[in-house]
């Protein structure tokens, strides 16, 4: 393959957000090294400002329709990529708000923390745009690299180091699978670009290759059976990093999954629908049932995250434009609710120095604001109206219903009831039980900002979702005519 790198100014515009953010983060790193006076709070504010400017830039692109493809279709900036990037940027900004107080307690490398977070964010932005297998591999490893460091950031904490090591070993293993899968697919099709694969004929090599790639991406999003790293890593990692892990990489990996399966593999739809149905059923059921037994709030949210990914995969299993719309809307709702919940966890653990659910006893008496916020976020995750998660779930269910995926729907609906139980257990601790220590808990301003953003988003998306749904619908116009299944694999008769 030969690359012809003739970039025009118009092409560079498409890369502007990433280029800008790269420069911005170099500036932040330089400032951290050179200015002795600069505090890490100021660095955090600068980082958030940079993210904000990038997001505005992307929003303007979205409105003006500045879209296109670069480097022989390796990199595309379409409306879907823009929406995913905005989600990633929003999540990063929220995470930084939550981090400010947390970073205070690090003994070393306060400034570098922000650098690492921003670098991962850039990696994930590239992931959202990657349109061939090579760029998938490069960007995936690029973004994960930052996380390897971030997860093990509390270097004096044994659990954080353990989490980092676990994440690293499994992550590298996943990378190996990904590389092997890519080589198989390239061997079978002779191309790496998704859109060129669309017409290929099925073969065993191709099937195995894509299953390996699916496994690697499944590792990223934490779908069963590739979820094993999630609970320990979530528990051990610094809480803001956990929050970051719980959303941004999943969003980025979902962008790749959507492009890969809805474009490259559109002709094999019946087969991968089965794959997603199975993965979704196992993720939802496993995540929800195991979450019941959790004693630690971070582990609970980890398992609930596995279940939520199961929900999101309902949209993938639907395999239609409506399914992809529902996924994007659900990601928005999930961002607000999940990051909001983590913000409350951070605020509480700052004071009581514990993440055990037992220690949330009587939170309502100690801090009515935090308890009410947590209540909203958990109920949104559970899918209770009028909160965002409810609309998201209904949207996914409608998408699945229109494809008549009854088994998946029934399992999904039963899982709503199961998940209600463990979310309500936390609610019970916060509202019904009496606190052992009734001293009030105060949240700091940056965390309050994150919580307020979460509450606003959760309520707004629940009560007035129209514009956001339209946004998601417009973003995926490219999927409006997913190719009808034409090819068949020798594995499954009939196809």
């Amino acid at each position, binding site marked *: 393959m030969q690359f012809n790198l003739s970039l025009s100014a118009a092409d560079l515009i498409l890369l502007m957000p990433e280029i800008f953010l790269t420069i911005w983060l170099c500036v932040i790193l330089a400032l951290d090294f050179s200015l002795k006076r600069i505090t890490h709070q100021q660095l955090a504010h600068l980082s958030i400002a940079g993210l904000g400017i990038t997001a505005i830039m992307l929003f303007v692109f979205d409105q003006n329709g500045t879209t296109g493809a670069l480097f022989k279709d390796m990199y595309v900036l379409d409306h879907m990529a823009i929406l995913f990037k905005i989600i990633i940027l929003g999540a990063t900004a929220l995470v930084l708000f939550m981090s400010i107080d947390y970073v205070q307690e690090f003994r070393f490398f306060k400034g570098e923390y922000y650098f690492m977070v921003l670098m991962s964010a850039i990696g994930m932005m590239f992931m959202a745009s990657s349109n061939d297998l090579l760029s998938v591999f490069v960007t995936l490893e690029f973004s994960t690299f930052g996380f390897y460091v971030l997860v093990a950031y509390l270097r004096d904490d044994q659990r954080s180091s353990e989490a980092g090591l676990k994440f690293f070993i499994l992550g590298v293993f996943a990378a190996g699978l990904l590389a092997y899968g890519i080589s198989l697919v390239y061997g079978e099709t002779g191309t790496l670009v998704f859109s060129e694969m669309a017409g290929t004929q099925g073969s065993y090599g191709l099937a195995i290759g894509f299953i390996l790639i699916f496994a690697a991406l499944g590792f990223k999003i934490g779908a069963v059976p590739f979820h094993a790293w999630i609970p320990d890593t979530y528990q051990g990692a610094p809480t803001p990093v956990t929050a970051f892990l719980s959303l941004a990489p999943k969003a980025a990996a979902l962008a790749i999954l959507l492009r890969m399966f809805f474009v490259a593999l559109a002709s094999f739809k019946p087969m991968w629908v089965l794959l997603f149905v199975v993965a979704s059923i196992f993720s939802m059921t496993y995540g929800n049932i195991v979450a019941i037994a959790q004693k630690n709030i971070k582990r609970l949210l980890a398992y609930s995250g596995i279940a939520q990914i199961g929900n999101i995969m309902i949209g993938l299993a639907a395999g239609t434009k409506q399914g992809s719309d529902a996924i994007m809307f659900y990601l928005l709702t999930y961002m607000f609710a999940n990051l909001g919940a983590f913000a409350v966890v951070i605020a509480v653990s700052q004071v009581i120095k514990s993440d055990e659910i037992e220690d949330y006893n009587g939170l309502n008496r100690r801090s009515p604001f935090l308890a009410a916020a947590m209540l909203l976020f958990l109920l949104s995750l559970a899918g*209770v109206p009028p909160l965002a998660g409810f609309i998201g779930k209904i949207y996914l269910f409608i998408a699945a219903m*229109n494809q008549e995926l009854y088994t998946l729907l029934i399992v999904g*609906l*039963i899982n709503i009831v199961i998940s*209600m139980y463990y979310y*309500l257990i936390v609610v019970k601790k916060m509202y*019904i039980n009496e606190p052992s220590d009734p001293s009030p808990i105060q949240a700091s301003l940056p965390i309050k900002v994150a919580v307020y953003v979460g509450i606003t988003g959760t309520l707004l998306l629940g009560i007035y979702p129209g514009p956001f749904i339209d946004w998601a619908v417009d973003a995926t116009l490219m999927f409006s005519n997913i190719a009808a299944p034409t090819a068949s694999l020798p594995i499954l008769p009939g196809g």
Partner: protein
Amino acid sequence: MGEYSLLIILFAPFLGSIALIFIPRQEELMVRMTAAISAGISLLASFYIFFAYDPIKGGFQFVQRFAWSEELGIAFYVGVDGIGGPLVFASAILLFAGIFVSWHIKDRTKEFYIFLLILAAATIGVFMSLDLFFLYFFYEMSVLPMYLLLGVWGSHTKGYLSMTDPEGLKLRDSVDFIFNFGSNSKEYAAMKLTLFLSAGAVMALMGILLIYHMSGLHTFDILVLREQAKFTDTMSTLIWILIFFGFASIAPIWPLHSWSPVGHAAAPAATSMLHAGVLMKLGHFSIIRVGFEILPEATRDLMWIAAVLCIGSIIYGGLVSYFAKDTKYVIGYSSSSHMGYIFLGMAALSYISLSGAVIYMFAHALATSMLFAMAGWVYDQTHSRDIPSLGGLSEKMPFIAGAFIVACMASIGMPGTINFVAEIMIIVGSWDRYPLQVVVAVLGIVLTMAYMFKMMRGLFYGKLDPEFAHTSDAKSWIDRMPLILLIACSIILGLFPGHFYDVVRSTVEPMVDRINQVAPLVTQNTRGLLP
């Protein structure tokens, strides 16, 4: 103004609860007044729609429609007919009365009223939704506040052992634990209620999604679905079963009732009132709104299920009430027994029986909430709900005793109360189709009489235990007003049910015609015409 009255009824409590968030928690009087004012506005507006509903015109009135999501075919579409209107009115009455009944709640008053207002507003929302999505939206929304209302402000049942009690710890390792231990706690009741209702709700949701997809219309608009939705026989049977059992779990029909008495027993007075009064009617109402309107053929073919199960409700509920010793259990089981009458009226599918069922929903709401309000008062005064340990309270609380007797009479269905009108209509209207069930229903009335008298005697007559010498009557107007309001509504409407009956009948007639005739007419006309 009149056109917007439904929005006022719905949003006054919501806005009230939002306003409460910003009121400092120390200002308890202001918190209560805000709640009372928002409920009062709602009550006035619902009073207006109840009387301004035009029975000659019929159909859905006070209709408001706003686009919400074109993509998914959802609109915020509200309006009431002769069934929704009275139930909206009942909800508003109960909310208003409930706020005054819980006037003395000290612990976290602000949160209590916020959740109470959300609960009532969501219930009202179901009764006026003309869009399936919003019907489900409000339905599900009304379940969650119950969890907190029960869990935080509720009370344990007698025999409850705390986990930390030595005796409790001993019990934890025995088999008894599974059957007895947790089941007396309010947390258990709250969780059971929430999970039960959520399970019912998702079942109904499956039915709703099937309606959405299988009708091929991809809309949630009930009126459009009613006119145009066509399903195959198997599909309509399946959907109807899902809808019926999904919503009947909240109604609650025997054998899905077990969450309800436990929940009643644990709930604070105002919550029991709303719960027994209107929350349970969400089930019947939704079955009528979704099942009767959209699936008339399946309703005609399958409504016998309700007629069979209602025997269980009436007899089982009545017998348990008779032997129960806890006042709230008596009233709770009596409610679930009385729900059987509504199912009987619905199953018989005649003008009179269905009208009777609708009026009974309203009447039962008033009577049961009175009983719960007074059981709550007695509990607040004596800290006991155990009937054998109480007695002779009429000495100390003559007003409560008097009102209690009226409430019991209403619950039995004494002439002069609206319950009588409803009961007689159900019994007369159902005779043609289900004579056996009517006999059971009459027996049920006898049973009701037995346990109501037994409870009355146990609480208010006999010798007063000196332990309860300090108890006092409801003296201030704040305590008396809600009871007087409920009794007045029950008796005035019982003496002058004319307008009420016309309103209900105007909706019931076309509905029953449609259910009973649509299919036979079609088959008669097409038989022989087509090969």
